[in-house]
């Protein structure tokens, strides 16, 4: 951890208009929860539907993408990473710092709104709010690591990330059950399913597979991103 690098990264992600991007989706989630509450649909079924199909499968991957690639990709894109890399700071430490920043942002912008939306609708009934919040947190950590790695490897990180989150996890995951085993989202849902005991929520990846997978993706992502940055050469694109 390096506090100066962390402070610079926070400023880069939260400064000016960029915070709007991080705020839009959580605000929409809470607005939907309020709407459901107002029209009197505040039961467990709707809550699980909202948290599963909006919070976990739409909001979380996108926020993970914005936070995970946003901590490093813009700097690589406009070349200012050179100022950071020329300082006597170990590059794996730079990566670890940026990873911690991304995770903290996800905890703030994804986990907290997920809990608030669940709590608004059903209170603490059946542990839905807490379960989904924990699921969002662990999946958010893995997303941050994966997308941070993607941001170091390629300049099309956001596009590839969107294709992974939308096409693989949502489209292919819905059609081919086997694809769900290799989806961070499904692992997060599996953790969420362990905490909540709502009858409306079913998961199809076992916890015994999800937890090791989450840990491996996170550690491998951060480690490999650190290695990539150690031997990084700045080259032009386009």
């Amino acid at each position: 951890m390096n506090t100066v690098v962390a402070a610079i990264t926070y400023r880069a992600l939260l400064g000016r208009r960029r915070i709007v991007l991080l705020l839009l989706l959580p605000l929409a989630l809470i607005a939907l929860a309020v709407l459901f509450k107002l029209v009197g649909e505040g039961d467990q079924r709707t809550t699980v539907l909202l948290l599963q199909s909006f919070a976990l499968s739409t909001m979380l991957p996108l926020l993970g993408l914005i936070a995970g690639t946003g901590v490093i990709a813009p700097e690589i894109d406009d070349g200012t990473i050179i100022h950071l890399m020329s300082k006597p700071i170990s590059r794996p430490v730079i990566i670890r710092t940026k990873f911690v920043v991304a995770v903290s942002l996800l905890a703030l912008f994804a986990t907290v709104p997920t809990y608030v939306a669940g709590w608004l609708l059903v209170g603490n009934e059946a542990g839905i709010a807490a379960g989904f919040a924990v699921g969002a947190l662990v999946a958010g950590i893995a997303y941050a690591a994966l997308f941070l790695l993607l941001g170091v490897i390629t300049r099309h990180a956001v596009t590839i990330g969107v294709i992974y989150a939308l096409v693989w996890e949502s489209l292919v995951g819905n059609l081919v059950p086997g694809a769900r085993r290799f989806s961070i989202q499904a692992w997060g849902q599996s953790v969420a399913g362990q905490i909540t005991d709502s009858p409306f929520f079913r998961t199809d990846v076992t916890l015994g597979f999800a937890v090791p997978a989450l840990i491996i993706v996170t550690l491998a992502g951060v480690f490999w991103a650190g290695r990539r940055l150690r031997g990084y050469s700045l080259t032009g694109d386009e």
Partner: protein
Amino acid sequence: MSEIYDIGYRHYDGPRLGRAHSFRALAVHSLRGIFGIGRPARSKIVPFALVAIMLMPAVVSIALMALIKERGIAYSAYAVIMQAVVAIFLASQSPTVVAPDLRHRVLPLYLSRPVSVADYVAAKVAAMTVAVFALVAVPLTLMYVGEVVVDLPGDPATGEYAGSILMALALALLLAAFGLALASFTPRRGLGVASVMVVYLLSSASVPMVYGTLYSTGNEAAASWAWLLNPFWLVDSVQSWLFGTPPHSIEGAAYPSGPASLAVLVLLIAAGLGALALRYRKAAAR
């Protein structure tokens, strides 16, 4: 005392091609950039992969027509069914049209020529519109040619095909105006991709949920308006009114009245173009 010397540079006295030519050159250059033509191979991977994904259902559909004499996807439903791919294309390629000029602040260079801000914006929107239109219309045309060649029993669905091509143009204009407006707010490509994607997903993920909730609590009239929040369903509702095609919303739910949808569509296109014009007026002043 200073004096400007004539140091013998030759003047340009060839033909001046004028505004229309520079508009065309700018539009063609942007269009080539969208598909990565004239750029390194890795800039071509994403757009052409998305075009290939977009063509797949058309190929499957032709195979169905040839083998079991049945229609696959209806022409009018193509854009709605493939909306995620179209949205990813729009999100990933809009920043390549607007971001480099903003980042390198070369706008004043363009504007020192006869090109005006309006010309510049119009050329960019035209290029993006043509690209999105091609993305939707090429599979449709392929499918139509397939249908004519396979010679299904009964007349080919020429009317539906023509209608869906016209609506593809309307959809392309709407998406191009909005995609470029959103992407032009940041000079960074990654953030541009993310912001277009965030807005699309907000509209696509929330609409069925808002609709379902309002519907199940008995607000059918209010529920049907929810479809207009998503560009693809909005254009489909106009299509369903103009050409009498069945609605392609989830489970064939009814749309609100057609003229209102058309008004919303026109208003949204105007809003997107207006936002772009304002953004570039500001960018040009820097």
